[in-house]
């Protein structure tokens, strides 16, 4: 194995040398007629932080599942340190020395850290010894954990530490991390990078899957880019711009957004929330605490925050699916705290929830039926004397398809037949088509390809420009900073005082994510 350069400071040109820890040759995976991976070749060197880039649907998850033993390739070979291997299941992957940290954690909220880790290890040993190992290893890598804490009490960043420590206890030579920073505050992400560099300097490789191109450029030594199941490029991300990486991922120039215009101070307040509080609907939910917010016509206000800080609960109270115990909500000046969801729609408000399948749309219903789902109560003639006018629904589907370029195959397919990006365009377009005066959307471009994401964001900007009040709840800071006029942060059910998007910094947002005091300012000190 070649000597490594220092972890901070000087960059090596070309790749780290030596025998690859893992290499894939000609990996192909078919699901029926769909070829998810097409003759993929790539290799990971020891001590390398290797980025795997690609849009949703490019084949990254499939490839990773094959490496981890959850899927078998249709053809192709995997080599571990130059010897061919077959990885029939995740336990075999772990025995080889491959560890994986998933995007969605598999932790039991009601158990302790040590208990969760014991469940995952093949030979956990005595509990006392395990706890010592946990304390030692977690401290060594800069991710200190108390083995007796209960998962439910931990922050998302701390929970991720549990997942990572669980991996590290098995002494891996390769750690696969799937979208690790999507659930972290900026400061927590920085801490993670320190840990990853430490691991790399010890010769452990990291396969890093992420959408966040700036991060990839900051810490990864090498990148493989997938598109439509094939490897289209390999490069050193440090030598490329984010725009170049994005265009390699998408295969074309990525459209620029026409930026929002500044908002006049005299524009009327269209959505007003005062002193909104609500207890937890169930033990693992978040209570809302004295939330106040005003959105004027023509402006886009975004609420940033790591998942699990009250976004769902706040959305449900805004849409009318849940009633707040205290506080008031007014749409265009009309008090609607006691009104249900359709009454608020009749006040010309529109809502797009985070989960498009199962909440925003019924998966096995046709698109025309899904139009009726949210627009039956808005006096548009979709329901006459109790009879549903599905032809009217189909007409709306046609309009939305045109306006938002929804690719759907058949004229009126089931919602579950559409890809994530196209379904999201439909769900947003269905509400946009009503020209709502107040538009509340949660995670507008989660899991959506770059082209559809741009279309959706442009629609939000256009809506604001036409005079509507737009409220966006999002975990994507880049998106928020791109389109918003003002930004607030939600943390533990509290909302910070909104600040101008052009003035607030990522560091300040990160601080607010860790805690907000009663006066809407950051309360806690970042660690």
């Amino acid at each position: 194995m070649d000597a490594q350069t220092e972890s901070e400071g000087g960059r090596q040109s070309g790749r780290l040398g030596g025998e690859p820890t893992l290499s894939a040759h000609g990996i192909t995976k078919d699901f029926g007629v769909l070829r998810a991976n097409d003759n993929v070749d790539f290799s990971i060197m020891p001590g390398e932080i290797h980025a795997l880039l690609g849009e949703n649907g490019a084949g990254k998850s499939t490839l990773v599942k094959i490496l981890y033993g959850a899927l078998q390739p249709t053809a192709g070979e995997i080599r571990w340190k130059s010897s061919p291997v077959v990885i029939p299941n995740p336990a075999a992957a772990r025995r080889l020395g491959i560890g994986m940290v998933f995007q969605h954690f598999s932790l039991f909220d009601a158990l302790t850290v040590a208990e969760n880790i014991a469940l995952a290890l093949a030979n956990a040993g005595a509990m006392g010894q395990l706890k010592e190992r946990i304390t030692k290893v977690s401290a060594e890598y800069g991710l200190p954990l108390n083995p007796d804490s209960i998962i439910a009490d931990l922050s998302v960043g701390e929970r991720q530490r549990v997942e990572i420590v669980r991996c590290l206890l098995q002494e891996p030579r390769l750690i696969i991390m799937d979208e690790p920073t999507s659930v972290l505050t900026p400061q927590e992400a920085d801490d993670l990078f320190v840990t990853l560099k430490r691991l790399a300097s010890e010769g452990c490789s990291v396969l890093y899957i992420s959408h966040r191109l700036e991060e990839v450029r900051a810490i990864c030594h090498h990148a493989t880019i997938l598109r439509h199941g094939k490897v289209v490029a390999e490069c050193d991300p440090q030598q490329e711009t984010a725009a170049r990486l994005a265009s390699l991922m998408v295969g074309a120039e990525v459209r620029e957004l026409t930026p929002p215009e500044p908002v006049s101070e005299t524009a009327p307040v269209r959505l007003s929330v005062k002193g909104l509080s609500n207890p937890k609907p169930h033990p693992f939910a978040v209570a809302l605490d004295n939330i106040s917010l005003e959105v004027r016509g023509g402006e886009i206000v975004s609420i940033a925050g790591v998942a699990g800080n009250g976004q769902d609960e706040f959305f449900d109270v805004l849409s009318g699916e849940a009633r707040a115990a205290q506080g008031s909500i007014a749409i265009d000046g009309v008090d609607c705290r006691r009104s249900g969801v359709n009454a608020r729609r009749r006040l010309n408000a529109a809502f797009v929830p985070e989960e498009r399948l199962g909440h925003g749309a019924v998966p096995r219903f046709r698109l025309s039926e899904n139009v009726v789902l949210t627009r039956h109560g808005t006096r548009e003639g979709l329901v006459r004397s109790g009879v549903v006018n599905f032809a009217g629904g189909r007409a709306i589907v046609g309009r939305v398809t045109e306006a938002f370029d929804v690719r759907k195959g058949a004229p009126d397919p089931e919602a579950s037949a559409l890809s994530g990006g196209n379904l999201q365009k439909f769900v947003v377009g269905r509400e946009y088509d009503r020209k709502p005066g107040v538009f509340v959307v949660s995670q507008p471009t989660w899991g959506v390809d770059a082209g559809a994401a741009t279309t959706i964001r442009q629609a939000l900007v256009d809506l604001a420009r036409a005079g509507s009040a737009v409220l966006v709840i999002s975990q994507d800071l880049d998106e928020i900073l791109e389109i918003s006029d003002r930004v607030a942060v939600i943390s533990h059910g509290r909302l910070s005082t909104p600040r101008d998007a052009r003035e607030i910094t990522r560091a300040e947002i990160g601080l607010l994510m860790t805690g907000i005091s009663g006066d809407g300012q950051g309360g806690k000190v970042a660690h």
Partner: protein
Amino acid sequence: MAVLSPVIAIALTVFTGFFIFLAVGVDPFEALYVYFVEPLTQWWTVQELLVKAVPIILIAIGLSLCYRSNTWNIGAEGQLVAGAIAGSVFPVLVPEWNGPLVLPVMLLMGIAGGMLYAAIPALLKTRFGTNEILTSLMLVYVAQLFVDWLARGPWRNPEGHNFPDSRPFDGWQVLPVIVGDDVRINAIFVLIAVVVAWFVLKRTLTGFQISVLGQAPRAAAFAGFSQKRMVLLTFLISGGLAGLAGICEVAGPIGMLRTTVSPGYGFTAIIVAFLGRLNPVGILFAGLLLALSYMGGEGVQIALNISDQITRVFQGLLLFFVLTCDTFIFYRLRFVPARSAPRAAGEVSHGSA
């Protein structure tokens, strides 16, 4: 597959029945003929079949609305009995009243009785979150015991030589026959119910709400549909239809209020609802099939000396196979060979990186 599944389930039931008859010691071909085919060969047995099918289909239509919206009314049998009791109030207590208005009043009271009885588990669910499967089922036994007591006790026919039945219904109090000797006007009620149910489910907002609530509860909340209101509505509808079936049985084929007013129609209707895939037209055909299974049971008892409980066995098997085959609408069975050695794509030269 959605259409094929009930057909395969029926085939599997017949197939299993073949072996059951074999095990019991009779000629399986003859038994299957007597069970499934003979009842269709004579006019009087066909009428009997229709008479049995009518209450089952009527109840199953109501149950299908419940089940589609994820509300589990298992107490249709009790609601049937409640309707029979409520509808019999006038003929039993005021037997002199015999005019053209009696029957409509009886039918309306039967519907009301079924609805009120169904409202009990519905309100327990919406108010207290009580599981409606348990409450509706337990109320079945309450109703059955109550009607038994009524028929033996306060409502017993004083001129009936101490037999535990009420006075027989008379004249206008009896459900009129419209076809042959046995098929009565409740057959028309069934056809109306099938058409109305089909229309409601396919075209109206109520039918839309039922489907959404059953498939995607969160989307239903997002649409402003209330699960609680639907629980009440579907229980009342299915209770009313079961009550109507009950009073029609009492005022029709039975002709009086007896200690038992139904051979388990309320439970058979559950099987019919699923066999018909919760679809009104499917239920129509499924009801005819299950009525056939009742006839077959009587037939093999008379001809081959097999207990008529064989009917229960067949109905149970059918429900089991229907639910199993339904799984295959969404999942396919595939045998995947375990991978033993690595396969290379084309020629791969070993030893190169």
